[in-house]
């Protein structure tokens, strides 16, 4: 299926979850809770179709065709 991630088209297998997408995108292994297995802090939040998806919901939330995902993080800013 095709979804949009940060405004770019991306192919994912049907049934992929938000957790899988975040792991793929960040290149980090994540627990079901959304915490990184390396013990560090992830620093990422996700919006799906303009709505926040809390981290605790990432593992259970399956993505649908044409979903628009935004993955955000902290950058330098005043």
């Amino acid at each position, binding site marked *: 299926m095709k979804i949009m991630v*940060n405004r770019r088209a991306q192919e994912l297998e049907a049934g992929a979850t938000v957790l899988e997408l975040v792991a793929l995108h960040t290149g980090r292994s994540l627990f079901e809770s959304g915490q990184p297995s390396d013990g560090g*802090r992830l*620093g990422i939040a996700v919006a799906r179709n*303009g709505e926040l998806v809390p981290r605790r919901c990432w593992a259970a939330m399956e993505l649908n065709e044409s979903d628009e995902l935004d993955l*955000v993080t*902290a*950058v330098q*800013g005043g």
Partner: protein
Amino acid sequence: MEDVLQIDGVTLGSRLIMGTGGASNRQVLTDALLASGTELTTVALRRHHAGSDSSLFQLLAEHSIRPLPNTAGCFTVREAVLTAELAREALETHWLKLEVIADQDSLLPDPPELLEAAEELVRRGFVVFAYSNDDPVLARRLEDLGVAAVMPLGSPIGSGLGILNPHNIAQIAERASIPVILDAGIGTASDASLAMELGCDAVLLASAVTRAENPARMAAAFRHAVIAGRLAALSGRIPRRQQALASSSMLGRVEF
């Protein structure tokens, strides 16, 4: 009694809040943050690109500096609220610097949108630091809505024009019962001292340090300036006089 700044039950040892925007690289930023002595620093929230590093959050954690995510670049209540929710999730803090600006040229706060966004975010449990115009009435309205701190601008963001309306800033500081943080427009150390002398509880700045020729040295200057201004504000300055007043006694003067 120790003179510390308390917000949301948290004690901040420094009254200088640094922004991270504008630094040319990570090392320059780190050196400036450490030289400033800040314990709280603003960050923006932007799209994460695969392969890019998200280590700013990590960097702040390593140095025990709290992140204060902002809603920079938001023009509407809807944008600000979603950005705030994302920030709370990404940075694991419910502290938020609320910016709702009117347009890209002035970067001035848009009061009606700001008030509505502040009300909504307070309702959602955020500790809101509200970036505001230097308007005592707007500051009062924000306080009434339950924000944790009000942040009047000295002059437009990044302008380095200092405090254009000291009278209004003093009015805001005098009337507020929540912390007042002078935000935006600071150019050099004396601007920060003036803000503190006018009664502000803290100063927030970014460009004045990060875009200075020597950011770390300027950061140290601001650390001292904020402390100096605060001490002066607490010390009861002498009244202004029209005429000179000798500080040496005339008694026993040697006459020739």
